[in-house]
């Protein structure tokens, strides 16, 4: 990281390649589809490059880069004016992309939705907290730093997000999640 900050182009190349797959995985979970994930991951790399001179090492580079990637994902979704694209398994087990959140299935088939589809139904504040914890393996303090919210809020959002996912994946009526405040 220091070499890349110092202008070493090869170090920067290595740094970006090393982290791309993790960032793509995060974006894939947050956007719910490959195309948006690819665009957002690319934007994230550009954001990292431009922000690198200001990276001060207070957080791990990975934590810092996740923050940039998460914002790139939500910017991408907003730019396209939509929620994450849902992915529903078809009768033969394949995944069909393209159903919108507005046309989401009722609870009778809620147990068939994939994890992407379930995540897509969470407000983004819950989604990013759950994904940073469960996919990226950040602890509460790191997520708190990445999202600039109190650790108590992180804990609450993760718990409520997981509970909502459990309901969606288990075919239960989806719980109503209000947009979270910054308070725990």
């Amino acid at each position, binding site marked *: 990281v220091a070499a890349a900050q110092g202008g070493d182009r090869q170090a920067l190349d290595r740094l970006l390649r090393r982290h791309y797959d993790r960032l793509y995985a995060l974006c894939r979970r947050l956007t719910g589809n490959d195309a948006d994930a690819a665009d957002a991951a690319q934007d994230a790399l550009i954001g990292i490059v431009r922000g690198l001179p200001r990276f001060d090492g207070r957080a791990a580079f990975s934590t810092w880069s996740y923050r*940039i990637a998460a914002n790139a994902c939500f*910017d991408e979704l907003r730019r396209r004016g939509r929620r994450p694209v849902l992915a529903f398994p078809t009768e033969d087990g394949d995944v069909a992309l393209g159903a919108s959140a507005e046309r989401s299935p009722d609870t009778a088939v809620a147990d068939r939705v994939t994890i992407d589809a379930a995540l897509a139904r969470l407000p983004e504040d819950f989604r990013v907290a759950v994904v940073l914890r469960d996919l990226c393996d950040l602890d*509460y303090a790191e997520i708190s730093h990445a999202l600039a919210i109190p650790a108590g809020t992180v804990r609450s959002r993760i718990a409520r997000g997981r509970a909502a996912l459990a309901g969606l994946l288990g075919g239960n009526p989806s719980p109503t999640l209000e947009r*979270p405040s910054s308070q725990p």
Partner: protein
Amino acid sequence: MTDDQSARDELASAYMDDALAPAERAHVESDPQLMARVRQLSAVRAMVATAGPAPDADQREAAVRAALQAAQEWTQRAVPLDARRQRARVGLGALAAAAAVVLAVATGVAVTRSDDHPAPQGAAAVPTDAGPVAEATSGAGPSTTIAPRSSATTLTGPSPGTQGTDGAVASARVPSAASGADVIRIVARSGGSAAPTPAGAAVSACPGPPRATYRGRITWQGTPADVFVVDGRAVVVARRGCDVLVTVTLG
């Protein structure tokens, strides 16, 4: 979902994350229903943790190339922050005769001002001609307002003890050639009166300068941006591209 169920879910979830005190942990382990919930939520966690297919190699290559290209362009254009700050000062100084700066903290008011624009400490109003074009609230944190070019004449914060639910005000005016000044106003909310957080408002798009505090989102001359405060400076960074749009000295 009831508050009680939410509290139990939070216990079960924190148990999975090994984030409970020993007594809480023992409580969870002694409750079969809570342990059943732990198993349910653990299954959810396992699904989320399963990464999808690896990205296409061509995608990776294209993304890295684009970022390196951006780095090259950035390097050609980039000026160290201190130099930007200096340049901004010189440029702004050439454009206008004076700058007024007011900085107030949540529990009091500290005022710094330029020679030709007195800003009396303790006054309560922040009048501008044009008014704000954007305001962002960051949870319990401060909100930030940037007004367009205007001829603001008084920039002040409320005196201690007189602040309303919005708390105290910190403002800085950036002189401009046209007709006056751009105004950065930072409202430090206090107590529990903060408005709900807009989606993502608590998260900056770009990392701020080292040691900087994120203050919220604004629109700077049509460009969505984040405001950071560090070492007595407000740094406005474009959310897309992370360019520093303007640096303003506070107090």
